[in-house]
């Protein structure tokens, strides 16, 4: 059997993020006093040091900050996917996260600043990871 791509291993801090992802929702920690994201999840807000995190839904659209088209897969589990795109996406209104760009019709046309929207990929029997695709590819 071919090796499978890794599923995230949630921690107490990140469990709400992955539980939301499994439901097909995006949810990230938010520091109310600072009115800003704390992502990836951490025990303390890096600005005020507070530990009380609310959870909010970020926008499901954003733009590509940077990317790489991967022609030589990281390891065996990604061999069937190559070439695949790894990107940093800034969600509209924040935060920023790493993702793959999926459903890309022309890998040569991926650009910095490209608009993308949220989708999901199944990992393991119960999990999903957020992924992004060019807008208008539904």
């Amino acid at each position, binding site marked *: 059997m071919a090796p499978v*791509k*890794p*599923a*995230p*291993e*949630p*921690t107490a801090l*990140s469990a709400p993020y992955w539980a939301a992802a499994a439901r097909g929702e995006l949810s990230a920690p938010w520091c109310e006093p600072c009115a800003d994201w704390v992502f*990836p999840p951490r025990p303390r807000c890096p600005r005020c040091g507070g530990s009380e995190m609310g959870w909010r839904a970020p926008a499901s659209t954003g733009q590509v*900050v*940077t*990317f*790489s*088209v*991967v*022609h*030589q*897969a*990281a*390891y*065996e*589990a*990604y061999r069937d*996917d190559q070439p*695949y795109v*790894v990107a*940093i996406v800034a969600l509209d209104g924040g935060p*920023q*996260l*790493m*993702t*793959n760009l999926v459903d890309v019709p022309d890998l040569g046309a991926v*650009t*910095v*600043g490209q608009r993308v929207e949220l989708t999901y990929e199944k*990992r393991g029997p119960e999990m999903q*990871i957020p992924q992004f695709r060019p807008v208008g590819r539904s």
Partner: protein
Amino acid sequence: MRNDPALAAVTEIRPGRYPELDELALNSAVISAFLDQWEVRPGDIDGVLAAPTGVLTDGGADVAVHEKVADELGIRPRFSQTMYAGGAGYALMVARAAEAIAAGRADAVLCISAGKFPKVGAASGEKIAKFVSHPEFEYPYGTYIPVLYALFAQRWMAETGATGEDLAAVAVAQRQWALLHPDAFMRDKGPLTVADVLGSRMIASPFHLYDCSVPLEGGAALLVTSGERARAVNRRPAYLLGYGEVHMEGAVSMRSTFDTGGATEAARQAFAMSGLAPSEIDVAQLYDSFSANPLMYLEECGLAGRGKAPELYHSGATAPGGSLPVNTYGGLMSFGHTGDASGMSMVVEGALQVMGRAGERQVPGTSTALVHTHGGMLSEHATLILGDRAES
């Protein structure tokens, strides 16, 4: 600095493949080569800074390497530890040793490291990917080292208009230098052209195979002493005129910008301490995991204007005979990338050029060198400025 700290002696073993030696045995080989090359007795050494072994390879990390080095030398140091900051760790060792010497806490500090890459297979790809990535928010997206570096290169290229030809020119110039270095691993491969680089297979855009460093094994030692002690060992030591460091986010996806590698602040500190201006630098040794790094660092260190670094390569300025030679030993792409010890190589070469001991590749009239090193995924940064005269 008080006591004029200097690199008195440097030794690097030939990069290659040493299947019969583990990293501790490679450290021993480095010590033997160092003692063979220089008029230094173990009892002259009163400080040891070593790097952990086994960070990337199997068997777990040994974080008490300084004890083993001291025991092998048969010395009882008054300044000693094992420290780690990836490829930036060795310029940082020089800075820490210099501080100890300036404070009178040590007279002669041996900085040492040996490195290997893990054997292919046995889930080593997964292991390294997890080590260099955020385990939850990056690792599940198929990351590995070239991809994470590519994210910086791609953004810098988008901002400055740099092209694949510009990246390739770095690999080409460095191969020219490697042809002059008897220990450079790629010397036997002969010259490289831009077409060769662009024609090699794509790994992770914008990096082709020949935009990547060559994974090998090896190691090096640096002896940092007071100026007075250095002059007893070496008629022309390389004085430490300035250094700087900065530590960026460890997880690439947390970086607030991708259009710089992070060298700017470290280089600014080093120049301010040295009192030198970028125009006074004779040679530069810039850590090159991938071809984009030296281009970005030339700009971040103030040796080229924003977006102007590629011109230095196309004009021949960085190549043998040029006005601003860069990576005069061939760099990690043509000399070889000795695992976790790779950050030693550009410190060694910067010192050798200032000492006038670089053999066929010696840049005539070199009196200053800038060395910039990074560790992790461009997270740790350390800059050294070396000179042939102690500060006044």
